[in-house]
C-alpha cells in the first residue's frame, strides 16, 4: 500500500496526476482569497466617506469571497470524483487506514522525526502518515465543515426555498442560530490558517531535510528520492 515502506530502488515515481496538481494550486489560491476576504467581512476596513452610491467596497469583498467559495466547493467535488478515477494516491485524502497498526507505528516514527528523536525519516511515495492525518482532518473534514457552514450562511441571502437553503439551510438550527454558524465558520478560518502555516513550513523542511522531494512533486507530479536505501 501507499503508506507502507520500503520503496526500494526507485529514484522517481509519478504520484500526483496533472488534474490533482491543478486542484491543489487552485484550492491554495481560493483558500488564500477566502481567508483574506473572510477576515475583512468580520473586520471591515475603515469607513469610507462620500456617498454610498460612490462605493461598493463590502459588496466586492463579499463577491470575491463567494466567487472563491464556489471555486473551492466545485474543486472539492472534482477532487472527490478524482479519488475514484485517479491513481491510488488520489484516494489518500478520503481514506485514513486507522485500523492498520503499521499506520500508527509510522505516524509515531514521523512525530519522533519532527521531535528530533529519529535520525532520519522514512520514505513515502504518497503522504507520510502525519501529513496524511492532517490532510484528512483539515482539508477533507475541515473543508466539508467550511462548505456546509459557508453555504448555510450564503443561503440566508439567497432566501428561503433557494437550492442553497434546501441543501444547507438545516445547518443553522442544528448549530443554534445564524450567529453561531458565523462564529464556527470564523473559527474554521483560523484552523485553516494555522494548518497552512504548518503545511508550508513542513513542505519546505521536508524538501530540504527528508530523503524525498515535496514541493517540486506538487509541480511536476514526480516524487524524487534522494537515496536508494529502504
Amino acid at each position, binding site marked *: 500500500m501507499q503508506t507502507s515502506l520500503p520503496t526500494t530502488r526507485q529514484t522517481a515515481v509519478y504520484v500526483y496526476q496533472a488534474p490533482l496538481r491543478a486542484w491543489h494550486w487552485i484550492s491554495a489560491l481560493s483558500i488564500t482569497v477566502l481567508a483574506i476576504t473572510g477576515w475583512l467581512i*468580520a*473586520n*471591515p*476596513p*475603515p*469607513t*469610507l*466617506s462620500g456617498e*454610498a*452610491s*460612490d*462605493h*461598493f*467596497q*463590502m*459588496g466586492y*469583498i463579499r463577491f470575491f469571497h463567494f466567487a472563491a467559495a464556489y471555486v473551492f466547493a466545485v474543486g472539492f467535488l472534482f477532487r472527490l470524483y478524482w479519488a475514484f478515477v485517479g491513481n491510488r494516491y488520489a484516494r489518500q485524502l478520503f481514506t485514513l487506514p486507522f485500523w492498520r497498526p503499521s499506520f500508527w507505528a509510522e505516524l509515531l516514527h514521523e512525530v519522533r522525526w*519532527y521531535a*528530533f*528523536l*529519529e*535520525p*532520519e525519516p522514512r520514505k513515502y511515495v504518497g503522504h507520510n502518515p502525519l501529513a496524511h492525518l492532517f490532510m484528512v482532518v483539515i482539508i477533507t473534514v475541515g473543508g466539508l465543515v467550511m462548505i456546509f457552514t459557508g453555504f448555510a450562511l450564503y443561503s*440566508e*441571502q439567497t*432566501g*428561503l426555498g433557494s437550492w442553497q437553503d434546501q441543501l444547507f*439551510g*438545516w445547518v*443553522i*438550527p442544528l448549530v*443554534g*442560530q*445564524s*450567529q*453561531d454558524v*458565523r*462564529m464556527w465558520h*470564523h*473559527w474554521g*478560518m*483560523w484552523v485553516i*490558517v*494555522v494548518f497552512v*502555516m*504548518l503545511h508550508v*513550513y513542513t513542505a519546505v*523542511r521536508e524538501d*530540504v*531535510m527528508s530523503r524525498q522531494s515535496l514541493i517540486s512533486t506538487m509541480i511536476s507530479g514526480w516524487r524524487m528520492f534522494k537515496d536508494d*536505501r529502504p
Partner: protein
Amino acid sequence: MPTSDTFYSQFRRAGISRRTFLHFCGVSAATLGLAPTMAGRIAHALETKPRTPVIWLHGLECTCCSESFIRSAHPLASDVVLSMISLDYDDLIMASAGHQAEAILDDIRTRYRGQYILAVEGNAPLGQDGMSCFIAGRPFHAQLKEMAADCAAVIAWGSCASWGCVQAARPNPTQATPIDEIVRDKPVIKVPGCPPIAEVMTGVLTYMLTFERLPELDRQGRPKMFYGQRIHDKCYRRPHFDAGQYVERFDDEGARKGYCLYKVGCKGPTTYNACSTVRWNDGVSFPIQSGHGCIGCSEKGFWDKGGFYQHVTDTHVFGVEANADRVGLAAVGGVGAAIGAHAAYSSYRRGKQSVDAQTTTSSPTAKHPHETTGN
C-alpha cells in the same frame, strides 16, 4: 365567558363603524402581504365566522409581549383584535380572579375541545419541580400541559416561549424551558422577539382566523411571512454596508450620517424579524433607525452571544470564553514562533549532521552516514 356570535356583530356593538371595519380588513391584508382582493375575504370571514376562543397563559415572563400586543398600530386595532378573538382567559387583564378565573380554563377545555388556540407568553421552569413559577397553586408546566392537550394549536409569544430568553440564559438556574420542548404533540407557532412586533402578533392571529389554518412556518417554527428574512436584508442602511460605510463609534460622523451599524455590533445580519419593514409603534421607527444596532432579540439564546456591541462574538466552549479573532491571532503568533524555533534547531542539527557525516565518511567502516548520527 365564551360567546358564539360573529366578530362583526361584536365590532358593531362596540361602536365601530363599518367604514373603520373595512379599513382594518384592508390594512390587515396589506400587512400580511396579500392581494388587495383578499381584504374582502377577510371582511367576509369576520362577518360570518364565530369567534375562536383563545386562552392566553402567562408563564415565566415580563409581560412585554402583552404590552406590545395592546399597542397594535392602527387606531382601534387593539380594540378590534381583542374583540376579534374570544379572549376567554388572560390572567393579566381579566376581571375575574381565583377559582372563578381558573374555572374558565376547565370550561373552555371541555366545551371547545380541539378548537381553541392556546397562546402562551413566557415559558415554564422545570427545575426544582417547577417551583419558580406557580399559578393557582400548582406549577405552570402542569397548567400548560393540561391546556395544550386539548387545544388546536399553540402560539408561543415572544422569545421566552420560543427560545427561553433571559430566564434561560446561562446558567439558567430555574431550567426555564421553551414551549416546543414541553408541548410536543401540537403545532407550536413561534413568534419570537423581546417583545414581538405588535402587528406581527395581530397579523399571525388574523391569518389563523381568516384562513383557519396555520401560517406557513420555517424550519424553526416561525411564520415565514414575518421571519423569512433578516433585518439586514431589508434594512434601509444596507447600502452603507455594501459601500463600506460604518459607524465606528456612536459619537462619530458616520453615526450622524446614519451609516451602517455593523461595526458597533448590529445583529441585523443574523436576526430574522420584520422590524426593518413593519417597524414599531405604528411604523414610527425601529432600533436601527434610532441609531442603535439590532441586539438580535428574536434569535435563539441572544443573551449568551457576547456583548451587544461586538460583531465577532465570544465563544463559550471547552471552558473558554474568548473571541475567535483573539485566539486565532494568538495561535498564529504561537505557531509562527514555534515554526521559527523548530526551523532554527532543524538547521542547527542539519549543520551538525553534515559535519558529522564528513568526519564519518572519511572512516572506511561507515556505510550509512545518517545512521551514525543523531540519537
